[in-house]
C-alpha cells in the first residue's frame, strides 16, 4: 500500500478511515466497531470494504467497548470508534476494566475531540479526554497534529506494542504540518522548529497554530520559539521534553483541552521534578464548551495563534534570569 500524503487542509479523522482500510487489507485480525457514528468517524470506509469484520453497535458505546474487549480477548485487534466524548466519558468503566486493566490490544479511535467539533456544543465537546485516558493505568494516548501524522499513527498503532491505546482525531479540516506521511512517530516528541528563547509544547489542532505563533514572535518580538509537537502524550518521552526545556528555560503548552490533566500537566510533571522552569498553559479553564462554528469556538476559548503569542509574551516577561541545570533521572 502506498499511502498518499495530503497537502490541503484535511481532517485527521479522515486519516483514521483511510489507515483503517489499509490495515484491514494487510491484517485479517483487524476488526472495527462503531456506535452509529461510522460516517462521522470514517470507520464506515472500513465497513464498506470489510463488512464481515465491521460491527455497528448502534447508539450503545458502553456495550461497544465491552464487545471490543471480548474480540481482543479472542485474538482480534479491534479498532473501536465514536466521538471522543462518548468513547471516554460514556464508556469509561468499560474501557477501564475491560480494556485497560486487561491490557488488551484495543485501539480507540476517538473523533471530534475538543471544541472544534463546533455547533453541537458542550454536550458533545470533549475537553478532558486526554486527562481521563492519561490517568487510566496502561492506556497510551496519541494526539496527531495533521492528516499525515494521523495516518502514520494509526498504522503504527497496529505494529506497536500490545497495550491499549487511545487516539484522538478532529472534525474540521486542519492545515498540514508534515509535508509527507512521516516514516514514524518516533518518540512522539518532535521538534518542528528550533529556538532558544522559549519552548512551545503543543498537540493536535494547535500545532499549526503554534507554528504561526512562532513566526509572529520572531517577526514582531525577535524571539526564537522552539515548537515541539507532542503526538504521544503517554508514555511521554520525558528526555526529549527535558532537552528542550534545558535549552530554552521556559515553556508554553497549547492544547484543545482542559489545562488540567492534559499536555500542560504532562509537561509540568517533567519540569517540576527535573528542571523547574515556568510552564505556562494555553487551554481550557474550569469551563464547558459552547455552540458555534469550529473557528468561533477556538477563538472563544483563546485556542488560537494569538492566544499562544499572548501567553508566550507573558511567560517571557516572567522568565527566570538564572537557570539551573536539569536533574538527571533514569526512566520515565
Amino acid at each position: 500500500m502506498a499511502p498518499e500524503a495530503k497537502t490541503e487542509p484535511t481532517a485527521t479523522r479522515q486519516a483514521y478511515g483511510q489507515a483503517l482500510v489499509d490495515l484491514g487489507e494487510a491484517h485479517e485480525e483487524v476488526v472495527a466497531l462503531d456506535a452509529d457514528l461510522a460516517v462521522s468517524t470514517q470507520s464506515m470506509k472500513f465497513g464498506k470494504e470489510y463488512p464481515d469484520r465491521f460491527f455497528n453497535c448502534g447508539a450503545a458505546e458502553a456495550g461497544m467497548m465491552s464487545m471490543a474487549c471480548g474480540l481482543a480477548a479472542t485474538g482480534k485487534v479491534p479498532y473501536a470508534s465514536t466521538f471522543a466524548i462518548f468513547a471516554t466519558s460514556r464508556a469509561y468503566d468499560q474501557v477501564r476494566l475491560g480494556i485497560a486493566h486487561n491490557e488488551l490490544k484495543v485501539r480507540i479511535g476517538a473523533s471530534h475531540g475538543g471544541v472544534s467539533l463546533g455547533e453541537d456544543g458542550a454536550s458533545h465537546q470533549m475537553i478532558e479526554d486526554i486527562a481521563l485516558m492519561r490517568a487510566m493505568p496502561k492506556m497510551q494516548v496519541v494526539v496527531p497534529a495533521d492528516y499525515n501524522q494521523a495516518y502514520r499513527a494509526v498504522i503504527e498503532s497496529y505494529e506497536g506494542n500490545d497495550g491499549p491505546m487511545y487516539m484522538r482525531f478532529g472534525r474540521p479540516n486542519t492545515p498540514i504540518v508534515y509535508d509527507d506521511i512521516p516514516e514514524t512517530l518516533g518518540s512522539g516528541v518532535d521538534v518542528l522548529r528550533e529556538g532558544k528563547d522559549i519552548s512551545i509544547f503543543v498537540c493536535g489542532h494547535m500545532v499549526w497554530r503554534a507554528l504561526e505563533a512562532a513566526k509572529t514572535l520572531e517577526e514582531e518580538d525577535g524571539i526564537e520559539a522552539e515548537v515541539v509537537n507532542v503526538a504521544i502524550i503517554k508514555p511521554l518521552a520525558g528526555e526529549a521534553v527535558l532537552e528542550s526545556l534545558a535549552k530554552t528555560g521556559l515553556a508554553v503548552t497549547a492544547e484543545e483541552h482542559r489545562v488540567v490533566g492534559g499536555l500542560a500537566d504532562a509537561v509540568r510533571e517533567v519540569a517540576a521534578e527535573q528542571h523547574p522552569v515556568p510552564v505556562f498553559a494555553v487551554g481550557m479553564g474550569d469551563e464547558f464548551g459552547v455552540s458555534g462554528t469550529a473557528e468561533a469556538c477556538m477563538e472563544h476559548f483563546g485556542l488560537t495563534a494569538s492566544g499562544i503569542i499572548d501567553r508566550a509574551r507573558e511567560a517571557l516577561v516572567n522568565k527566570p534570569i538564572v537557570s539551573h541545570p536539569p536533574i538527571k533521572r533514569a526512566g520515565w
Partner: protein
Amino acid sequence: MAHLKPVPDPTPPPEGGDRPSIEQLQRDATVLRINCVRMLAVAKSGHLDSSLSSADIVAALYYRVLRHDPKNPRWPERDRFVLSKGHAAPIQYAALAEHGYFPHKDLMGLRSIGSHLQGHPDMNRTPGIEVSTGSLGQGLSMSVGICLALRLDGLADTAHTFCLMSDGDCQEGESWEGAAAAAHYEIPNITAIVDYNHLQTDGTTEEVMDTGDVRAKFEAFGWDSVEIDGHDMNQVVEALERSRTLDKPAAIVAQTKKGRGVSLMEGRFGFHGKPPTPEQADQALDELEATLAEQTSSLEAAGS
C-alpha cells in the same frame, strides 16, 4: 430567500379556555416545522429531519397536554418535558419561542456564539428547559429522578413528566435502566414517548442495530405500553392524555417518519445532522407554507 420572511402567527390562544382542537394542533405543528426550517437554514447546522419527526408530538404537548406557564417557567406544579433526543432541540426551541418563553428572534441565533440556544438543550441557558440533554439514553433516567422528587414534594398526582426518546435512545442500555427504575418505584406520573422513525445516523435502525418490538419491551419492563401513528394528531393527543390518567409508567411508541412534512427528506436516509441547503430550505418552506395555508383556510371555514 423564503426562509428570511417573517414567521406566520401560530393559532391564536383559545378564548374562554377551550383547548385547541385537533385541527388547530395540526396547524401549530406546521408552524413549528416552519420555524425549524428557518432556524436551520440560518444556522447552517443542526438536525432538521430529527426535529420534523417530533413536530406533531411536541405540538400536542406544548399547545394542549402540558400544564405549563411561560411567564413562570419554574412554576413548581408544572408538567415536565424532557427531550432525551436532545439533538432535536430546534423543535423544542420553536415551541418555547411560540409560547413566549423567550423572544422569537432568538431562534435565529441557534448554534452560534453568544446565543442561549445551544446545539443541545441547556437548562442553565434557556428558559423552559428542565434538564440538559444531548447524550442519548440519559433522558428517561433523568425523568425518573424528576418524578421521584415530585413524589417527595407531594406533587406526584399533579405534575406529570413526559420524556421524548428516539431509536438511538432505545439502543442505549441506560434507557432500560430507567425503564426498570420507573417500574420498580411504581411511578405513575411518567410518560415515555418513542419517536420511532426507524432511521439513525448510519442507516435504518434495522440495519444498524435493530431495536425490535419496543412496545413489547416496555411492556415486559412493567409499563403500560401502546403503539400509535405519531403523525396522526388524534392518536397522539388521545395517547398522551390517556397516559396521564394511568397509575403506572406509560410508554407510547409513536411510529413516525423522519423529516415529516418535507417531501424531499421525509422517510429518507441521508439527511441526519445535515442542515438544508438554501434551495432545500426554500423548497421545504414552499411546501410547508402551502400546508399551512390549507390548514388555515379549513380552520377559518370551520370557524365561520
